[in-house]
């Protein structure tokens, strides 16, 4: 018995998206190959992964720039 193909695809998207942060952090989950395979096939998830990666890169960049990362001087 095969799953509904649309439902099946949504499940793969859901599983892939759930692993994206760990993958970006170099802490890959148990099914990294499935994620990479899915990113190669699903343009929607590929865009999401690219956008998420750019977001995380920007956050790290903010953390490296004190003037963007909040006051680094006392307020007294």
């Amino acid at each position: 018995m095969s799953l509904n193909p649309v439902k099946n695809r949504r499940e793969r998207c859901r599983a892939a998206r759930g692993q994206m942060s760990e993958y970006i952090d170099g802490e890959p989950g148990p099914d990294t190959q499935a994620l990479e395979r899915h990113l190669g096939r699903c343009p929607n998830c590929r865009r999401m992964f690219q956008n998420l990666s750019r977001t995380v890169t920007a956050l790290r960049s903010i953390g490296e720039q004190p003037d963007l990362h909040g006051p680094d001087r006392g307020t007294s």
Partner: protein
Amino acid sequence: MTAKLNEPRANGDQVANRPGPSADESELIKRAQAGDAEAFNELADRHGSMVRRVLFRILKDCEQAWDAMQEALLGAWRNIGKFEGRAKFSTWLTRIGINEAYRGRRRSGPEVVGLEDSIGERVPDWGNRPDETFESREFLGAVGTALDSLSPDYRTAVVLRDLEGLSTRDAAASAGIEERAFKSRLHRGRMALRAELDEYFSAGYVR
């Protein structure tokens, strides 16, 4: 000679980021636990700047962040005898600071960010913009604004892991939650930011 103990300075920012003195941190902790305020001040100087940045990001208010920092340092000074060294001192201090930041705030848990709503919908393409676009102050400013819009629990996770660069383990301990829960919170926070930034692109705020 018995030195008169002074209250710690409770600021932790004046000499942050200077090269550390030769005194080993564990030695400073032992001295602070024995009542040496100068040793405690040295620890506060080493780590206070990072904690204060985290508190500012959580509270989004300089004065409140300053107050929380003062309370955190006083709390740490009073309780340094209970520090067992199971976590880094910086993690312990950050945890106390975050508790202070949340004091008085209702802890109802993070608003749950749905990750599944957009499955099946077209994910916006941020386009073939050059890398410079994503390194520009304009874009980073948009990310910072979006970060401020996150609920405090998600914001805390993102600040600890991405802005401060703590390991997942240390960030989770600082937030006072299990690693698995922290990872989930971090991922949801990042995804919420990404979704918020879609709006910036679609509205043309970032070219």
